[in-house]
Structures are given as structure tokens and as C-alpha cells.
């Protein structure tokens, strides 16, 4: 029973649904209702909303609306009671019917959740879908059972039409007798009925069983057949499906992108861990950026300004410019051309300036960017390379293993220590380990874990050191001692193995220059001295005397030890550990400057010089680190230092400052960019150096060696900027003059500070040294030389020739090169090259030849002003408005246009409002008149009634009268 009911319901719902749909579709216009509005002007392609209207319909609508609004209001006028519709969502038009239902249902549910029903856990509610409960829907009945229903030929229990017609209706006696003679009795009839129904039932049963058998048979057969058929179908499908899926994929892409555009990004994914490649790439990009900035700084302000002014020129406006709707051609025009790939040939920057619509944004969204793909390609190739490398690694490791295998037997801990001792290799080795775990899994994991633990411990120690100095000191002390003792035990075979490894890795990873560092680190770790730690710990504890402490800390050690000690010192005062550490480190910077100063002052022996330079070499990176931590104060310190040194030098201008001044120029070139056009440190130091070269007297080994050092520094300073340093070039000229064979009779022009006929020929080689074996470089011992020997003369000459050539190359494209270097060539001509060692002489000859050749092909183009491009005639171009409104207000200013717009709007609204009011009034009037008519009619009716009754009464009265 329930089933049937449900069915009916569902049909209803569908019907309603369909009806609504059809109603929407049905909206057919009655041609008599349509009124066609006459068009005054026909505009092509214009779509007008108002070309036809339905006056009747719209009027009816309007009236209906008024009835609903004004009418109800009128009805309620002067009434105190109000009728309120509390049905949920009845009045709001925003809710659709379904939503309304949902809301009501929710309200219902809420109502059920009152106190009484708290413990009724949803047994009484029945979820329905189109009137059917879910259980009903989800009853997975045997489909066969439905057969019964489908047989709906007969509705009444399967009785035949004839029988029914006879039996139920029209079974009157009359018809019966008319149609069938000698008919059966009622009893016969009933019997026939029963028999017939029994028979049908049996037939039905039989048929049913047959179909069942058949289906089962078919099923079994199908199961057999299935593998054959299915396969074929699959393949057929796959070909098609492929195409389809491709198409779909495209669609997917499209969809995906569309969705991306449509929806905002919910959240940004945090930066994933960058792999080494990416890091390297970023680093490279950063360096490139910095390099670009550096180059920009290299140019003078003038040039920068020139560049800028080119970019931003004031747009010319003629005095007769009438602001009419013509846009003048842009000042800077360029030909927009594209290459084969469709990329504009103009540089990107320019495009950006001109905002060419086609210009591709540099990094837009990753869709139009082709570079990504390339990168991916690169990545892939890189990956391949990596794989290759890793394979190589494996191979090499395998070979290593073979080596190691015989040593494995020694002990595990040895390996352990080895890894600790060269920490720099760790990462590389870790990688190796991972790639080749398979053959030595038994040892390696342990090793790794230990190796990882160690640095951690160290780090911890550094942190804790602040808090518990003394305790930790001892621990660290022990630690270092252990290390050293371990290493000592292992002896030399260990080292050789290490070396092998390092060599291999060096060749593979191409970090040749790191080797030195590694070695040094290894060394330093071995021999870290215990006292250092204590000193470091209390380095900044006492207010004064840090400088002495630093000296104490560093003196009497090898450069490597000093470096490691300093490293520890800096590490233990890392700015991240404490706020004050930054100040402390800047102080340390000053003390280190002082230390270097002390180190380089009073160098008497060659060994001292070498040692000083070795130490400086080791300490220089720390200067860089420290100056990075606080740029301002380190700059201040260096500036102060320069000032002091300059003051000292000014006292004795003729004397070349000693190494304790010159070394700082080198330091500055390490710390600061020397190529900047103007820089707070490098510019003064360059001025200082040029002054040294112009004012000092160069007449002995002391001054000449230092002068050459300064010249080399100047060369280094200007290597990037290729700046002209007249004094350096002049100094080289002086050196050549000193080594040239000048006689009083045959003088040659010299430039101060070198003087004609005074201390000339002090570098002139008088003996035949062609057999001498002299290396070309100047050496540390030259700084301590007291007398000029042949060796020194030769080296001075060859070095200055080398430097000269480099300076010469700076000015290859400048005409003045001739004036700068011709005197040098003349002087070299005066030098008897035969006396010099063959190597030096050859080199000098080569350089001279090179310079001569360079000067000979030199051409002189008169200086001209930069050619100005002829200006194109100004052409008028149509003023293209992005959004064409066609209104005259386009000419007006913004405010005017706005006010105009508001005025028109106001007018329109006013008009509309007036009309509305008028119509409301008429509606009200009509309603009132209708009411009036209605009430009149009622009154008339009543009057008529009264008259009627009265007349009836009168009539009766008259009747009575007449009857009387």
C-alpha cells in the first residue's frame, strides 16, 4: 500500500516541476498585446531594449504591484491590528522554494530539540526523497519482483475486461436477457471466474520460471564469454579514449587555469627545502645582481645622471597646445619589431616604460613564461649529470671500499674520528654514504650518526659556554684533547688516506681552492690549545686591555692556529647569542686592525715579513666577517686608521710609509669594492696611495720596493673600473728611468718625483746577468732589502713591465694611450736588455712589441659631440579612448563630469518619482472610486431591498385593506 502511495507522490512532484518549466517556456506573446515603438534613428548593430513593449501586460503588472504594496497599505490604513505572516522565508524573494523548505525543515528540527526530546535520538524522523523514505529507495530488491507490477493490462486482480464489464456493471437483467440467450446462471459465472483466474495464475507461474531459467543460463554463458568480449572492447575503447582523454586533459588544463584565475589563492605554501642546485642558482643570481649594482656604482654620477635623464625627459608641450582631443606623438618613439619567436626586439626595460600591450611581463604567472621550460630542461640535464656524478661517486667509492676493506679490520672508531677530523667533507661524504649504503651498511650508519652528533655537541657547547664558562671550558678542553690524541695515535697512514680521498673529491666536485682550507681546519682542530678557550671565554669580561689580550691570544702561534683561535673567538661571540656581542665584535675588529698594524710594523727580517703575510692571509676573511656584522662602525674604524696613517705620512712626506700602512690598502681592497666611482673608504685610500707615489722620493731599495707594492695595489684597485691613475703610470716610468741607461749628454724627460740626473741609474744593470736565474715575481725579502742588488733590479724591471702592460691594456680604446705610454717605450729602448736574463728580456721584448703594435694601429678620431638623432615631425594621432562613451562630457573635467552626471541622474529620478506618484495617485483614486461604487451599489441594493420590502408590505397592507 505504502508503495503505491509513494509512487503517486513522486509523480506529482515531477509534474509540478515540469509545469513550472513549461510555464517559463510557454511565455508566448499575444501579437495583439505587442506595441512596437517607433525608432527615430536606426543605428546598425545597436540592440535596443525598448523596440517593442507590452503595454497591457506591463500596466497589469504595475497595477498588481501597487495592489500588493499600496493596496495592502490602504487596507491597513487606520487599522490597529495587523496580519503577520510568520511562515519562514515566505516574503523574502531571495530564497528559492527549496531553500525555503530547507529552512523550514531546519526550524522544525530545532523545535524538536526541546527539552523533552533530548533523549529521543532521531527515531521518529523519516528522511524522504520525493516522498519515499531512504530505506525504501535503498531496498535492493530483486529486479524480477517488479515484473508483477509491469503487467498492468488488467487492473482488477487480473480479471478480463469482458468479465468485468459483465460481472460488475451492466449486469442488469435486461441486458443480459437481451444479449445472451440461455445464459449461465450466477453460480456458473462464479465458477468460471475462479477457474479462469486459477489458470492464469498457473500460466504466469510457468512463464516466470521459464524466464528465470533463461536468464540464469544467459548469465552463465555471458560469464564464459566475458573475457573474450571484454578484451576486445577495451582495446577499441582505449584508442578512442586516448583521444578523448587528451581532449579532456586540455580541458582540464583550461579548467584548472580558469579555477586558478577564479579563486583566490587560499594560502601560500611555505618555502620548500631548497636543494643545493637551487641554492647555487639563487646565489649566482644574487651575485649577478650585486655585480650589476657594482657596475652602476662604477660609473660616475655624471654618467648615471646622463642615463637617468635619457629615461625621463620632460614631455614637450607647445605653447599653442589647445588641449584638443589630439594626443601628440610620444617623445621617445621606437620601432617595435619582433623576432622569429614573437618576442619584441626592444629591450624589456624599454617595453616596460612604454607599456606596450603585447609586451610580455617578465615573471607573470608561469604560463607565458618560456624560461621555465628551459629551466626544467636544464634541471633535467643537471639531474642527469648528477646521476652520472653519483655513479662516478659510487665507482670511486667502490674503489675506496676496496682500499678501505683491508683497513676496516682495524677498528670502527678510527673511521669515526676521521670523519670528525675533516668536517668539511662531511656533506660530500654523507651523500656518498647514502648512495652506497648497500655494501657497508654495517659500519656506515653508526659512523654517520656519530659524525652528526659531534658538531651538535660542539654547537651546544658554544651556546652553553656563555652560561657556564668554567665547566664547559674543561669539557671542551677534554674534547679537543681527545681529538688530538686520537689523531696522534693514528699516525701517518691515516693522513695519506685522507689525502687520497681529498684529491679525488677535489677533482670531482671542483672545489680545489677549498683544499687548503680543509687542511688548515684539520690542522687547527688537532692542535687547539686549551688556554685559548679560557682566554676567549673571558675575552670581553674585563673592560680594558682586550687589545693586549688579543695579542696574547694570537702571538706565538702558527697562522693556522691563529686563524682557528680567532674563529672560535668570533663564534663564541656570535651576535645571535647575545645583544652585546655585536658591539664586542666591532671592538674586536678594531683590535684586530691594531694587531695587524703591530704585526707589520718594524719588519726587519725576511722571515718576519713572510710570517706577517701568512698571518694576514689567514686573518683577512675574519676581517670581512667582522666588518659585515657592523658595517658602519668598521668603516669608521678604518677611516680613523687611514686618517692616522695619513697624518703620520704627512709629517714626512718624502718618505714612503712602511708596510704597517700599506697592508691596510690591501685589506681595504679585500673588504670594499674598489671599483666604485666614489666610496667612503676606497676613494680616500686611493688618494692616499696616489699621493705617496707623487710626493715620495724613490731612491733606495726600501722606497722602490714599497712603491712597486703600492703600484701593484693601485693596479688591483682599478682592475675593474679601468680608471686612469696617472701617478702609478708615472711611477712605472720612473722605475724604467731608474733602470735605463741615462747620461748627462743624452737626457730624457722625467716627471717628478723622479729627478733628472739625480739618483738615476740606481736600478741600471751594469753587469751581464743573462745567465742568472731569476723568478719574475717580487718577493717578501725585497721589503727588507737594504742594498740594491742585481736580482732586485731584474725583478723590479720585469714586474714593472708586467704591470705596465696591464695598465696599457686599460686604455686600448682611448686615444691618450699614446701620450701615456710613449715615454715608457722610449725608456725601455734605453735599457740594455741583453744584460737581463733571457726569460725576462724575452718577456720585456714581447711587451714592448705588443705595446708598439698597439700604439701603431691607434687611430685618432676627433672628439665630437654625441650625435643627436634627428627628431621626427610631430604627427597628430587620433585620441583613442579606451572606453568610448560618446557623451560630450568626455571633454569636461572630472569633477564637472561627475556633477553633470549627478544632475542628470537627479532629473531622471525626479521625473520617474513624479510619474510614480502620479500613477500611485491614480491607482488610489481608482481604488477609491471602486470602493465608492461598490458601497453605492450596496446601498442601492439595500434601498431597493427596502423598497421591495416596503412595497411588499404595502401590497399586503393594500390586500388586507381590499379584503376588508
Amino acid at each position: 500500500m505504502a508503495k503505491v502511495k509513494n509512487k503517486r507522490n513522486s509523480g506529482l512532484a515531477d509534474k509540478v516541476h515540469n509545469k513550472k518549466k513549461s510555464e517559463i517556456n510557454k511565455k508566448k506573446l499575444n501579437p495583439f498585446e505587442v506595441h512596437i515603438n517607433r525608432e527615430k534613428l536606426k543605428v546598425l548593430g545597436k540592440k535596443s531594449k525598448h523596440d517593442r513593449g507590452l503595454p497591457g501586460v506591463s500596466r497589469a503588472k504595475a497595477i498588481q504591484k501597487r495592489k500588493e504594496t499600496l493596496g495592502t497599505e490602504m487596507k491597513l490604513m487606520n487599522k490597529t491590528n495587523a496580519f503577520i505572516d510568520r511562515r519562514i522565508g515566505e516574503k523574502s524573494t531571495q530564497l528559492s522554494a527549496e531553500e525555503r523548505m530547507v529552512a523550514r525543515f531546519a526550524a522544525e528540527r530545532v523545535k524538536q530539540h526541546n527539552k523533552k526530546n533530548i533523549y529521543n535520538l532521531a527515531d521518529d524522523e523519516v528522511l524522504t526523497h520525493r516522498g519515499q523514505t531512504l530505506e525504501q529507495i535503498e531496498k535492493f530488491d530483486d529486479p524480477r519482483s517488479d515484473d508483477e507490477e509491469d503487467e498492468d493490462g488488467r487492473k482488477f486482480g487480473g480479471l478480463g475486461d469482458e468479465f468485468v464489464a459483465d460481472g460488475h456493471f451492466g449486469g442488469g437483467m435486461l441486458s443480459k436477457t437481451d444479449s445472451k440467450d440461455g445464459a449461465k446462471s450466477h453460480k456458473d459465472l462464479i465458477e468460471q471466474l475462479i477457474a479462469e483466474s486459477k489458470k492464469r495464475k498457473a500460466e504466469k507461474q510457468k512463464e516466470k520460471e521459464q524466464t528465470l531459467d533463461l536468464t540464469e543460463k544467459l548469465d552463465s554463458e555471458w560469464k564464459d564469454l566475458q573475457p573474450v568480449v571484454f578484451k576486445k572492447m577495451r582495446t577499441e575503447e582505449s584508442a578512442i579514449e586516448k583521444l578523448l582523454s587528451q581532449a579532456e586533459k586540455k580541458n582540464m588544463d583550461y579548467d584548472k587555469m580558469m579555477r586558478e584565475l577564479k579563486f583566490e589563492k587560499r594560502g601560500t605554501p611555505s618555502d620548500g627545502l631548497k636543494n643545493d642546485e637551487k641554492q647555487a642558482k639563487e646565489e649566482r643570481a644574487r651575485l649577478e645582481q650585486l655585480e650589476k649594482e657594482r657596475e652602476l656604482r662604477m660609473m660616475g654620477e655624471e654618467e648615471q645622471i646622463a642615463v637617468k635623464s635619457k629615461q625621463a625627459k620632460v614631455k614637450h608641450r607647445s605653447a599653442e597646445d589647445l588641449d584638443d582631443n589630439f594626443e601628440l606623438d610620444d617623445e621617445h618613439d621606437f620601432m617595435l619589431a619582433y623576432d622569429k619567436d614573437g618576442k619584441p626586439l626592444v629591450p624589456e626595460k624599454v617595453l616596460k616604460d612604454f607599456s606596450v600591450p603585447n609586451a610580455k611581463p617578465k615573471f607573470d604567472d608561469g604560463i607565458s613564461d618560456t624560461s621555465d621550460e628551459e629551466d626544467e630542461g636544464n634541471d633535467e640535464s643537471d639531474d642527469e649529470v648528477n646521476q652520472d656524478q653519483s655513479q662516478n661517486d659510487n665507482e670511486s667509492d667502490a674503489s675506496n671500499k676496496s682500499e678501505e676493506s683491508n683497513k676496516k679490520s682495524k677498528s670502527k672508531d678510527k673511521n669515526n674520528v676521521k670523519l670528525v677530523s675533516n668536517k668539511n667533507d662531511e656533506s660530500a661524504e654523507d651523500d656518498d654514504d647514502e648512495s652506497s649504503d648497500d655494501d657497508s651498511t654495517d659500519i656506515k650508519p653508526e659512523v654517520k650518526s656519530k659524525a652528526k652528533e659531534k658538531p651538535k655537541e660542539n654547537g651546544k657547547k658554544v651556546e652553553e659556554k656563555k652560561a657556564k664558562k668554567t665547566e664547559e671550558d674543561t669539557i671542551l678542553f677534554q674534547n679537543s684533547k681527545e681529538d688530538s690524541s686520537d689523531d696522534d695515535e693514528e699516525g701517518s697512514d691515516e693522513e695519506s688516506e685522507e689525502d687520497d680521498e681529498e684529491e679525488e673529491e677535489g677533482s670531482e666536485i671542483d672545489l680545489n681552492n677549498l683544499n687548503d682550507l680543509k687542511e688548515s681546519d684539520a690542522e687547527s682542530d688537532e692542535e687547539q690549545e686549551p688556554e685559548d678557550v679560557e682566554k676567549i671565554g673571558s675575552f670581553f669580561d674585563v673592560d680594558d686591555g682586550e687589545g693586549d689580550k688579543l695579542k696574547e691570544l694570537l702571538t706565538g702561534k702558527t697562522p693556522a692556529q691563529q686563524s682557528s683561535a680567532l674563529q672560535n673567538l668570533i663564534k663564541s661571540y656570535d651576535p645571535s647569542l647575545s645583544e652585546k656581542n655585536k658591539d664586542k665584535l666591532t671592538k674586536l675588529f678594531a683590535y684586530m686592525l691594531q694587531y695587524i698594524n703591530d704585526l707589520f710594523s718594524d719588519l726587519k727580517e725576511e722571515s718576519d715579513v713572510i710570517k706577517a703575510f701568512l698571518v694576514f692571509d689567514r686573518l683577512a676573511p675574519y676581517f670581512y666577517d667582522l666588518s659585515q656584522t657592523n658595517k658602519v662602525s668598521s668603516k669608521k674604524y678604518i677611516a680613523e686608521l687611514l686618517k692616522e696613517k695619513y697624518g703620520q705620512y704627512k709629517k714626512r712626506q718624502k718618505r714612503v710609509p712602511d708596510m704597517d700602512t700599506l697592508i691596510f690598502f690591501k685589506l681595504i681592497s679585500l673588504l670594499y669594492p674598489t671599483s666604485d666611482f666614489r666610496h667612503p673608504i676606497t676613494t680616500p685610500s686611493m688618494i692616499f696611495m696616489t699621493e705617496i707615489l707623487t710626493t715620495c722620493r724613490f731612491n733606495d731599495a726600501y722606497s722602490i720596493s714599497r712603491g712597486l707594492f703600492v703600484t701593484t695595489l693601485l693596479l688591483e684597485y682599478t682592475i675593474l673600473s679601468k680608471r686612469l691613475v696617472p701617478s702609478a703610470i708615472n711611477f712605472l716610468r720612473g722605475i724604467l728611468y731608474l733602470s735605463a741607461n741615462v747620461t748627462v749628454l743624452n737626457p730624457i724627460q722625467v716627471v717628478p718625483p723622479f729627478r733628472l740626473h739625480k739618483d738615476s741609474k740606481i736600478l741600471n744593470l751594469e753587469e751581464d746577468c743573462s745567465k742568472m736565474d731569476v723568478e719574475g715575481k717580487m718577493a717578501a725579502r725585497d721589503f727588507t732589502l737594504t742594498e740594491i742588488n742585481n736580482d732586485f733590479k731584474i725583478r723590479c724591471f720585469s714586474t714593472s713591465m708586467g704591470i705596465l702592460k696591464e695598465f696599457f691594456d686599460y686604455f686600448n680604446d682611448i686615444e691618450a694611450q699614446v701620450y701615456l705610454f710613449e715615454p715608457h717605450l722610449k725608456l725601455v729602448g734605453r735599457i740594455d736588455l741583453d744584460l737581463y736574463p733571457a726569460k725576462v728580456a724575452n718577456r720585456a721584448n714581447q711587451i714592448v712589441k705588443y705595446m708598439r703594435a698597439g700604439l701603431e694601429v691607434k687611430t685618432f678620431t676627433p672628439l665630437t659631440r654625441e650625435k643627436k638623432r634627428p627628431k621626427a615631425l610631430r604627427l597628430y594621432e587620433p585620441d583613442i579612448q579606451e572606453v568610448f562613451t560618446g557623451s560630450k562630457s568626455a571633454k569636461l573635467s572630472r569633477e564637472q563630469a561627475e556633477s553633470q552626471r549627478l544632475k542628470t541622474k537627479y532629473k531622471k529620478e525626479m521625473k520617474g518619482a513624479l510619474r510614480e506618484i502620479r500613477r500611485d495617485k491614480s491607482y488610489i483614486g481608482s481604488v477609491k472610486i471602486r470602493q465608492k461604487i461598490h458601497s453605492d451599489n450596496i446601498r442601492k441594493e439595500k434601498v431597493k431591498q427596502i423598497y421591495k420590502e416596503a412595497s411588499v408590505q404595502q401590497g399586503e397592507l393594500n390586500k388586507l385593506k381590499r379584503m376588508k
Partner: protein
Amino acid sequence: MAAVQPNPNFAKMISAQLRNKANHNNLADILEMFEAETDNYTPLLLTVEVIFTKLLRRGELLEGIVPLKPADNSPEAQYKRWLRECFEAAQTRILECIRRGRMSSRLQALVTACKLMQAEGKHPLEGSSGFYFPSVRLKNIFNVLLDPEISMSAPIARFQEFTEYKDVQQYGLKVLSTIAYRKSPTSVYMQNYLELLDKLLVCEIPTETKIKGKERDDEEKEEKLLCGTEDKAPFPYNPGVCRRYANRCWGFACQWPLCHDSRTHRRALLLLVERLMPLLNRPHLATDMLCDSLDAGGPISMLALQGVLELVRRHNIDYPDMYDRLYAMFEPEMFATRYKRRLMHLADIFLSSTHLPESLVAAFAKRLSRLALVASPEDAVGLLQLVANLLLRHPALKRMICYEDTPAIMSNDPYVMEETCARSSRALGSSLWEVWALRADRAAPLALTAPDLAASFDAELKKRFKTIEMNFVRPQGMTTPSGERVMQYWELMA
């Protein structure tokens, strides 16, 4: 040691001497002590100075000489006479001290002598009402200063503070003119003489008496007098007299062989050019000397140039090949001389004439810029400024920096540096490539944009920068990541 120890004694002795005549032996002792001392006379000198200044002020040395009266033999008079003797003795001692001992004491001796001279001038030994200047003392001082053996440049320089007094100037010139005459003085003597004359002329002697007339009133108030006192008659300063004496002094000096020694020569020229030229009655007479000096070359000709310029400008002297000589002076050696600034300044004046031929000016421009290539930054700046002036004054030179026609590429520079004649050096066909090259220099363009900051070390350090740029690559050791050169040419660590 001796100088430090007796200091308190001196103070005591001074007070004793001044208080009581009985203690006058102190004075004799002090004078004796000059003998003992060898090096540092300063305390002695100061003592003597104080004593005698006081005595002079008190008038104890004043001797009333009454005519027709026998000399007074009273102890008073005797004491006075003794004091005067002491005074004279002290004077000679002091003058001796100028020559001896350490420099500070020498200077102190000079100052003391002058102070005593001043005191004497203010309180003359003989009573007189008019202005009195002890020119004898001055003469003595001058005699010492004009030592034929020792160079007195330091004391003479110190003496400058006294020559600023008008009376010293006038009397000094007078005295100098009287003692100047000597046949063959030594070069040291000549130098001393020239220096002294130079110092005497430090204060400008007004040349135009007419102009002087108007300003006389206010100037007279400012006049500084060494020996002037308010109650006495004012000192009759006469510029004409001064000039006459100065002329006479120079007249003597002219006869000496000034041009033999280069130092004397330079000094003489400097004196002539700086001080004397406007004062000389007949400057033409110096022409010969100047011309000879001009040919001498080097710094001497640079100095002579100024004199010649003066002659040419003021005295209508026509000098042949003036500009070629000037041209020849621009050599690299000029940077070593002290007078390079002067030369540049003079060249600027010389070349300021707009009537000069273009080729000549062009040659100068070319040469100057060529020199700027080898000059130190500050010299280069001066030279470039000069070139800029030339370019501004002579518009035709514009072609040297921006050639109008389409430039033809030349195989070499048409300008001939070695050519001595400026006009035939064909500089006009050339361009100032040197200036272009200097654009690349660090200091020069900076200096041109802000000449007052002329790229000096201090100015550069003081300049404020918005950012402090650092190298972006951490150095590994002492090799610069961006192009190491020191290690390439120096083997420092082996």
C-alpha cells in the same frame, strides 16, 4: 741644566736689582753669566730685558746733560754712568747672542734687542720731546743680521713682526741703505740682505700719493708705531722717503752678481717681483735682469715671468716671443717646483687676452692637457681649470672638444709636442683626447665638479655616504675575489 736651575735666582735678582741700588752687583753678575753660558741664553736674555726695560721706564738711565757744566761726579751720576755702560755691554752681548746658541735663544736675543730698542725709543736716553728712534740700535741689529757667513733667515723671518711697524720700516730702509754698500759680498750676505729687504717691504708702501691723501686720516689711526708714545709728537711717516730708500737699497743690490747663485737669484727675483716692482722709480732698468732670468729656465724663469708680465702690462715693454717662452715653461719638471701655482696663475693672465691667435691658444690647451696626464691630482685639476678657461674664452677652440664636421679618422695626432714654437705645433687640428682620458681618472672629474673639495684626502673622508658598500664575495685569504694582482706580482708567502 744650567738654564733650568738658576731660574728662581733670576727672579730674585731682578727684584733685588730693581728694589735696591745696593744690589747692583747682581747686574754685573748677570752680564758675567753670558760668558759662562754657551747654548741657551733665553733666561739671561729675559732677565736682562726685564731689568733694562724697567730701568728705562723709570728713567734711571736718563742723564740730564746740561751744557757748559762739568760732568757730575756724584755717586748718583756715577751709578748712572755705570748703568749706561752696563746697558751698552748688555746690548753687545745680546747682539752676539743672535749669532750663537740654539735657535730659540737666537730668536729670543733678536726679540730682546728689539724690545730694548723699543723701550729706548719710548724712553730715550737723552731727554727729547720729539719722536725718537734709536736708529743706531737698529743699525747694530742689522749689522748682525746681515752676517756674511751664517744664514739668518730664521731671525729675519722673526724680525718681520717688527717691520710691520711703520717707523721700523722707514728707519730700517734708511739704515739698510746706509750699510748696504759693499763691493763683493758673499752669497750668504746677499741672501740675508735680500731677505731683510724683503721683510722690510712686507708692509706695503703706498705708491700713489694722491689716493693716499683721502685715506690718510683713517689710516693714520691704524698706523702701528714701535717707539711711539702718546705724549710725544707723532711719527712723520713718509712713503716717498721709504720708496727712495728702498730704491737705493735695490740700487746697491743690483750691482752685485745676483745671478750667479741660483738661490740668491731666486730670492732676488722673488723680492723684485713681489715687493719692489711697484716701488721702483725706473723699473725698465730691471728688464735686462728679468730677460736674462727668463732665459735661465726652471723656476727662475717662472719668477722672472711675473716681472716681465708686470713690465709688459704697466710699462709698455714689448717682449719678443713672450708666449713661446711661456709655452716652453710647461714641462713636467714644473710640478716639482714651488712656483707651479704661480705659473698657472700667470699663464691664465697671459692667455686671458682675446686677441691671441687661435693656433697659439690651442697649442697651450693641448700642452696643458698633456701635462695634466702626468700631473698629480691637484695639479691636474689646476691645469684642467686653466684649459677650461681657455676653452671658454676662445670659442674657436670648441672644435678641439667637439668637432663640427664629420670627423676623419687620423692615424696620428697632428699636434707636435716637441715643437718649441707654439703657433706651429698644429694643435688646432687636434682634439683634447687627454681630457677625455682624464675623465676616467678618479680625482679629476670630482674636482671639476666641486673645485673647493678638490678631491683631497680629508674632504673625501668627511664626505657622507648613504650606504657603505661592501664586497659581496668573502675573501679566502688575502686574494681579492675580483681580480687579484698583488699576489700575481709578489711572492709574499714563500
